[in-house]
C-alpha cells in the first residue's frame, strides 16, 4: 500500500529550537560553522564535522523509532514490529545496491543524501504535527522528533559545506510534500510517521557511510 500518496508542502518548524535548549550548545559547533565561515579552508574539517554529526545522529535513530512505535499502540508497539513494505512516495528510499552506491561520484552521493535529509526534515515536521494531534501528551516523542528534524537540517548544512569545498553545486531545496496532506486518516498518519522515522534511520546510516568514505578519501 501507499500511505499518504498525496504529499504536500510543510510549515517551517523553527520554533522547535526553543524546545531543545539543552542540545543547542553542542550542536552549534556542528551546525553554525559552515554558515558562518563560508568556504572552509580545508576539506577535513567539514567532512569531520559532518561525519561526527552523522555518527551522533546514528546513535539516536533507533531510540526515536522505538519511542515513536511505542506511542502508536498495537500493531506498531508490538514486539518485533516491522513493515518494510510501507513506503512513502514523497520520501526516497535509502536502500540502494552497494555497487551502485559505491559507483556514485562524491558529488552525486552527497547530492542524493542531502536531498533525502531535506525531504526527511520536511516529513519530520509533518510527523511532529501529526503526533501533536494524535498524541497531544507525548512530550517525549515530540521533543525527539523535533531534535531529529534539527539534526537533519544540521547535517544538510555540513554536507553543503563539504560539497562547497569539493566544488559540487548545491541544488535548491525541493518541496517534497507538495500541497498540505490534510486528508490522511489517523491510522495513515501513524503509518506515515513510522515510515519517516524508519527512513530517517536508514538515511542516517547511509550518511555515516558517505562521510566515512569521504573521510577515508580526503582526510588523512
Amino acid at each position, binding site marked *: 500500500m501507499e500511505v499518504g500518496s498525496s504529499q504536500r508542502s510543510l510549515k517551517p518548524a523553527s520554533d522547535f529550537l526553543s524546545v531543545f535548549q539543552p542540545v543547542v550548545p553542542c550542536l552549534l559547533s556542528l551546525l553554525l560553522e559552515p554558515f558562518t565561515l563560508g568556504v572552509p579552508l580545508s576539506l577535513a574539517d567539514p567532512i569531520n564535522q559532518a561525519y561526527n554529526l552523522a555518527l551522533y545522529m546514528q546513535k539516536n535513530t533507533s531510540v526515536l523509532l522505538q519511542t515513536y512505535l511505542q506511542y502508536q499502540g498495537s500493531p506498531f508497539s508490538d514486539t518485533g514490529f516491522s513493515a518494510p513494505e510501507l513506503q512513502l512516495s514523497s520520501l526516497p528510499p535509502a536502500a540502494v545496491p552497494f555497487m551502485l552506491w559505491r559507483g556514485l561520484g562524491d558529488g552525486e552521493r552527497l547530492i542524493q543524501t542531502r536531498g533525502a535529509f531535506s525531504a526527511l526534515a520536511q516529513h519530520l515536521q509533518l510527523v511532529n504535527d501529526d503526533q501533536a494531534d*494524535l498524541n497531544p*501528551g507525548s512530550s517525549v516523542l515530540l521533543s525527539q522528533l523535533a531534535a531529529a528534524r534539527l539534526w537533519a537540517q544540521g547535517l544538510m548544512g555540513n554536507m553543503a559545506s563539504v560539497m562547497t569545498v569539493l566544488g559540487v553545486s548545491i541544488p535548491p531545496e525541493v518541496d517534497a510534500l507538495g500541497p498540505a496532506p490534510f486528508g490522511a486518516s489517523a491510522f495513515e498518519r501513524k503509518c506515515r510517521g513510522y515510515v519517516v522515522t524508519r527512513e530517517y534511520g536508514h538515511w542516517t546510516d547511509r550518511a555515516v557511510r558517505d562521510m566515512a568514505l569521504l573521510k577515508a578519501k580526503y582526510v588523512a
Partner: protein
Amino acid sequence: MALFLTLWTVFLLALMHFSTCKSTESSDYLVFPIESLNTFIRSNEQCLDIEWTVNPHAYTLNLKMIFQIDIRRTTFSNIVENKNYTTTLIPNETLQWCWHSALPLECTSHLVRIRSMVDDERFPEFKFWSSWSSWWKSEGKDSSGQYHIFPVDKIYVEEDSNVTFCCISRTDNEKVDFSYEERYSQRTKLSPRTTMFEVNNVSFVRRGGSNAFCKFNSDNSNIQGVVVYITGVIEEPKNFSCQTRDLQTLNCTWDPGRDTFFPEKFIPTNYSLFEWFSQKKVNCVHRNWCTWQLTSDIQDMYNFTLTAENEVRKRRVDILFNVTQQVQPQLVGEISIKHVSETEATLKWKIIPNQKRLSFLCQIEVYHDGKVIQYNTSRSQFTLRELQPYTAYSTQVRCCTANHFWKWSEWKSKNFTTKEDVPSGALDVWRIVEPVSMGYNVKIFWKPLPTFQANGKIQNYIIVMKTLGEVHREDIFFSESDSNSTEKIIDQQSYEISVAAFNSVGSSTPSVIVVSGDTENSAQNITEERVNGTNDGIYLSWKPDPAKAEGYIVDWCNYPQDAVCDFQWRKFGPNTTSAIIRSAAFQPGVRYNFRIYGLSTKHEAYLLEKKTGYTQELALDCKPIVTVENLASTSLTLNWKDNCIDEPQYGFFNGYHIYMKSEVGGSCDQETEKQNFSDNIIVCKYTVPDTKQKTFNVKKLQPKSTYNFEVKAYTGGGDSLGSFIKVTTGTPENSNLIMTILFPMAFFSLLLIIGLNLKIQWVKEKCFPDIPDPYKSSVLSLMKFKGNIHQATLNTSDCIPDAIEVVNKSEISKMQGSRTLLMGNEITKPAYLYLLPTGKDALDSQTCICFENFTYRQDASDSDSSRQIQMIPTDPTRSVGPAEHLLNAEKDYIGSLDNIPAGEASLNYVSQLAPTGAISGDKGSTSSNLEAAPCSEYKMQMVMSTGLALSLLPEDDRPISVTSLDQLEKPC
C-alpha cells in the same frame, strides 16, 4: 387556498358517506403511497438518512400517518430494520427519518422500502396500508475495487460499548486479518468482499487511541486502519446553580461528575450555558463553573440550560430563578470602629450589592474570654454595650439578603479594646509574721487583680501601714506593678496595713489587714495535726471558731522545701470549716504544712490550727540492716540499724514491718498478719509501731527450721527497702528437758522418800498395819451397807485360842529377812501349844467357818457376798478334820476362784474361824444352832498362791494358817 381546503374537506366527507355504501373500493381514496424515496449516508453519526414524499394532498390535510420502513442489507434476505414511523404531515416539510446502524453504512449496500397508512382520528375508517415502494438502494463501498476499513479515520466511542468494523477487499474472497488490541472479534462475512468484525466492551488502553486494522494477504503492503478513542460516559451535571455577589456577574457552578479519561483538550467535553429569555449562549472555559454577565435592572428572571457534550454524547440541565433571590452579599473594606468607650463600641461596615431593591440582615458575633455573644441588625452599623473596660474583643460580621435568604456572606472580622476604668473590687491580701531580733518581720502578699477588676493596666501598688497604738504613725510605700509582695519590720504594736492597686484612671478599694506579733506568739501552743491527702488535694477541716470569726484563711507553701516557697493562701467564709486544698504544684511525697487562721471583724488574724500532710505518702528511702541474736531452737532476737528518719519527705514514719517466711511453710501465729502470695508462699508480718524500737523477739519458731526475715520501715505510702536475713533455728536441748521435767520429778521423789521414811510408822499404820483394824476396813463399810455388820465382825472377847504359837523373835526376824520362807520346799514347822483337845474327834464335832478377807480383794467383795463359805458337816461320822475342812474349803474356794483371771488370783488370803459353840460354852449344841451362834474365833489369816496352797496342804493334816512374811499374823 381556504376555499380549496373547504371544498376538499367537503369532498372527503362526501366520500366517507359514500364509502359506507360501497366499502370495498373506498380504501383507495385515502391511501397515499410513497411517491419518491432517497437516502443519504451521514458517516459521522453512522446514520442512514431516509427522505420520502407522498401525495401533496396528504400534507394539505395535515394527516397523521404511519410509515412502515423496511431496511435490509443487500447480501441478506432478511430485514434488519422494520420501523413504524408516525408523524403528522406538514406542508413543505420533508418526511425524514435517520436510521442508526451498528455496521458502518459504507460496508455494504442497504435497501429501503416504505409504505404508509393514514392514522388520523378524523378518518378512523381509512386505516389501510398502501403498497410498498420499490426498494431503494444505498450503495456501499464494497464494489469500489479498493481496500477499505470502516469506520474511517478516527472514531470516538464510550467505554464498554460495542464497536463494529468492516474490511473491504479489492477483489472477491480475499483473505483478510483483523486486529484490535489483541482482542477477540466476532467475524461475519457480509459479502465476497466485505467482512464484518464486532468488538464488544471496548476499554481504554492509551491516550493515543487504539488501532483497528485490516491486513489483506493478497497485498501485504496494504494495511487499512482506524484509530479508536475511548472516552468515558459523560454524566449529567449535578448541583447546577447560579448566584451573584454584586448583581453584575452571575457565577454558575455544577458538579461534572466522573472525569473522562482524556484531557478536555483532546476529547473536549464542552460545557455551555444557554439562556432562553435572552437567547444568549456562552461556552464555558472550565468544566465545573462558568460566569454570565447580567444586564442590570432589565432582567430578573433567568432560564439557563447547561449543556455538556463531547463527540459521543450530550447532557443538558435546566434551571430557572430570580437573580435577586440568588444574591450572596459581600462586605467590602474593613469594619470600622467608632466611639469606643469603657463599656461601648460602635461597628460600621459596607455591603454590596448596594441596591435599594435589596434589604439585608446582618449578624454580629462578639468574642471575649472564650464566650460569644450574637446580635442581629438590619442596619450597616451596630453599637455594642455592656462591655468590660480595658478588654480586648474580637468581633465578626456577616450579612444575607433579608427578603429571600440565599447564602450568608463571608465573615468579616475586627478586633478592638475598650478604654481603661477605675479598678473595681479589692486585692486579696495576706501576710506572714515572723519574729526577728528587732520585732517582727511582716511579709505582705497580694494577688493581682483579675482583668475584669483591674479595668486597665496596673501601674503600681500602694501599701499604707498605720499604727493602732497610742502613738499614731502612718507609713506609705509603693510597689511595682509586677510585684505581689513586700516586707516590713514592725515592733510590738499592732499595725493596720492596707494595700490598693492603681491604674491610669484610679485606685482599687484598699484591702485592710491588722498585723500583730502577739498573734504569732499564741501559736506556740497549738499542736500540729496530721491530715490525709486525697486524689484531688489535701482535705482540711477545722473546728468552728468560738469567737465567731468573720472568715477563715488557710495558708501554705507550694514548695515547702525551697527558699522561695511560693506562699499561698485561700480565704473562706465564716460558715466553712473544711476544704480541699488543691494545687498543681503539689507533689507526692512532699509534706505540706497548713495554718488555719480566723479573721476577726477588725481584720485581725489569729491562728487556730496547724495541719500537716501529704497528697500522697511515699515509702521511705532507707533500708534497715537486720542482724540476729539469741538464736535458740524456738526463738530469736532481731536487731536492726537504719537511717530511716521522720523527715518531711516521703511520708509519716510509723514504725517497722517484720516479714517472716518459713522455708517449710507453716502458719502464722495470732500476733502476726498473714499474707498469702500467689505461689502459695505464706509470709507472716509483725508490725512494730514504734520508730524507736530497733529490736524484736520472735518466738514460737519451729526447731531446726529455716526462716527468712526482712525488716522494712513503713509509712502510709508503703514499706521501704529491706534486707533479708536467713536464720536456721537450733535442735531441741535435752539438758533443758531434764532440768525442766526430770529434775523436779527426782527432787520430789526424794522428798517423798524422805518423808515416808520419817513417817514410816504412821504410814505403816495407815496403809499396812501389822494387825489391820477391821473397823477401819472398807469391808465394814460394805457390810454396813448391807446391814449385817455383826455377822462379819468377830468379837475378840469371844475368841478362844486353841493354840499358842511361840515364835522366837530372832526366828521371826529371820523369817522377815527372807522372802523365800514360803517359796522353798522346806517349811519351818512352828511350835504350837494346843489349847483345845486335839484329835479328830475334837474337831469332828466342830464346825468351822472360813471367810475370805475381802479387804484384799475389793473386786471379789463387790462381786458376790456369797463367797462367804460355810462348811457344815451333814454326817458327824463323816466329819473331817480341820485339814480336810480346809482342804475342802480350799477346793471349794479355789473352785469359786476359777472364774477369776489367773493374774489376779495369784494370791489368796484365807482366815479360819474356830467353832462358835466352844466360845459360847455350850459345847453340846449342835450344828442346828450353829447359825445363831456368832463366829467363835478369828484365826490366822493366810496368803498363798493357788498352786502353792494346793501343794502345801497334803503335808500336814492339821489346820494351819499360812501367810506371807509381812502379813504373818498373830493368832487372835
